[in-house]
């Protein structure tokens, strides 16, 4: 399997992005914005369409579209209060509409090649981008770990404690949007929007503290991403779909395990 260089690169990228996705996705899940990955992936498509029609670099515009979209989601989140997820749907719909309208003006061929992300076809340049992104995300995560935890616990208290909540939020948004835009281009939007949420969801089922949940989500995510690369090689499946399939399977397994142990406990007490 590792006889081929492209498989080595795919494996490295699976490990790196596998760690990066849940580190950023966790916060989004806790903020009840789980589908923002999906919304942003569509925004990045809209960005590609705008770039192609306006004759600008589609990759940069798609990154910009992601950042702007996530800031809008953040604003709408404050507006809608307890219905935070509405903002996500608004952005998602707008992005799909823009893409649909503009795709009539851009050449379909060009469009497809920008949408096309496959972990099997990663250039050196893309590999370096992934490595750079991973370093930045890891640094951000560990440097702001305490402050983020504080904000998640209570934004009000964090403010009183002197944490620049807005700035922290903005920095996280920026990194999150950047990761979705780059991730969609490199490994495809299905993988990105799933890996931002599923591993954290699985880890949450364990009902442990924040630290263990974070660690577990990274492990689940890496297992899914790397497993997708390995299994798809031997089964001749599509790697992205295989990774997502594994992530869902892991979630179901933990769910089944939890259900069973609950059942056993009840029997013991009964």
């Amino acid at each position, binding site marked *: 399997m590792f006889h081929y260089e492209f498989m080595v690169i795919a494996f490295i990228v699976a490990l790196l992005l596998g760690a990066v996705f849940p580190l950023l996705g966790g916060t989004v899940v806790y903020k009840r914005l789980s589908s923002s990955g999906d919304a942003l992936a569509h925004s990045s498509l809209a960005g590609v369409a705008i770039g192609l029609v306006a004759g600008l670099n589609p990759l940069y515009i798609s990154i910009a579209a992601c950042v702007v979209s996530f800031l809008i989601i953040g604003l709408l989140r404050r507006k809608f209060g307890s219905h935070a997820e509405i903002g996500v749907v608004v952005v998602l719909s707008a992005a799909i509409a823009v893409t649909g309208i503009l795709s009539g003006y851009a*050449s379909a061929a060009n469009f497809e090649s920008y*949408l096309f992300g496959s972990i*099997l076809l990663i250039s050196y340049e893309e590999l370096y981008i992934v490595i750079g992104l991973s370093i930045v995300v890891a640094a951000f995560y560990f440097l702001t770990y305490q402050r983020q935890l504080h904000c998640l616990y209570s934004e009000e208290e964090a403010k009183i404690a002197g944490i620049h909540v807005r700035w922290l939020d903005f920095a996280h948004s920026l990194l999150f949007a950047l990761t979705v835009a780059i991730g969609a281009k490199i490994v495809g939007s299905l993988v990105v929007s799933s890996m931002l949420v599923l591993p954290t969801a699985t880890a949450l089922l364990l009902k442990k503290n924040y630290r263990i949940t974070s660690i577990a989500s990274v492990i689940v995510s890496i297992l899914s991403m790397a497993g997708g690369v390995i299994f798809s090689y031997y089964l001749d499946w599509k790697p992205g779909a295989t990774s997502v399939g594994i992530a869902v399977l892991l979630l179901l397994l933990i769910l089944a395990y939890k259900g069973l142990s609950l059942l056993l406990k009840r029997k013991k007490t009964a």
Partner: protein
Amino acid sequence: MKRLLLLLPSLLLASCAPSGNAKPTIVASFYPISFLASSIAGDKYDVVCLTPSGAEPHDFELTPKNVTTLYDSKAIFVNGLGMESWVDSLQESLKEKTVTLSDGLPTKTIDSRIDPHVWLDTRLYEKMAENMATSLAKLDPSNVQFYRDNCATFSKKMADLREYCHKIADAFEDKVIAVNHAAYGYMCNEYGIEQLYINSISPDEEPTQKAIEDILKAVEERGIDTIFFEELASDAVAQKIAKETGAKTESLNPLEGLTAKEEREGMDYFSIYRQNMDKIARSKP
């Protein structure tokens, strides 16, 4: 047991080792390209077609096995003109051995976009066969004559096909067809037929109001009685138009791929091209 254990590594080695006497492979992106490849390369190369039968080349995504095939192959033949969106994302070493067969062909545009369906023009397809023969000759100079001969045989078959189609087209008085996806521009152009279409680029795109209105009007005004759709894509729009105008629907194959049934029945480029022309000729009011 011991003997078995001793045997094991050699068995493993035998199954893993790239067998030296196996034929080298060349990769083709989708049907018309793989048909050219096997016609010209004959028994000198194994031809692997990346898009499986029954799949639409536009929707195609690579698996690890596909990519290993690309790495192990001597050359990768593609149509180009945007039919294979994955070519742009290939690693440099793969791009280097990729041959775009449509290079240098006079292409046509449809709604200000390049129409990629060049293989439906028999003369352009012949040119692509020549391009294929030239690059195979470069790859394997000891068999230059073999590839030239195959190319000549292929050209002769194309000439026969052209003659057959011209005869049919001449008898087809209407000289107009209605299709759901404008894939037949090159074919229609060759035989002086006009192509009315609903979608210009993608067979599965949502059509605009105006496109539907235009085609409804045209179908009624010109007494067209058949709306053509393609087998590898949805026929919903064609059905709708047919219902609205009382026309019937019929399938045409733009030869982007064969259906599983066509493959079973041993059909190929030539027989399907003929079948398309027959269907068009039968669509008289």
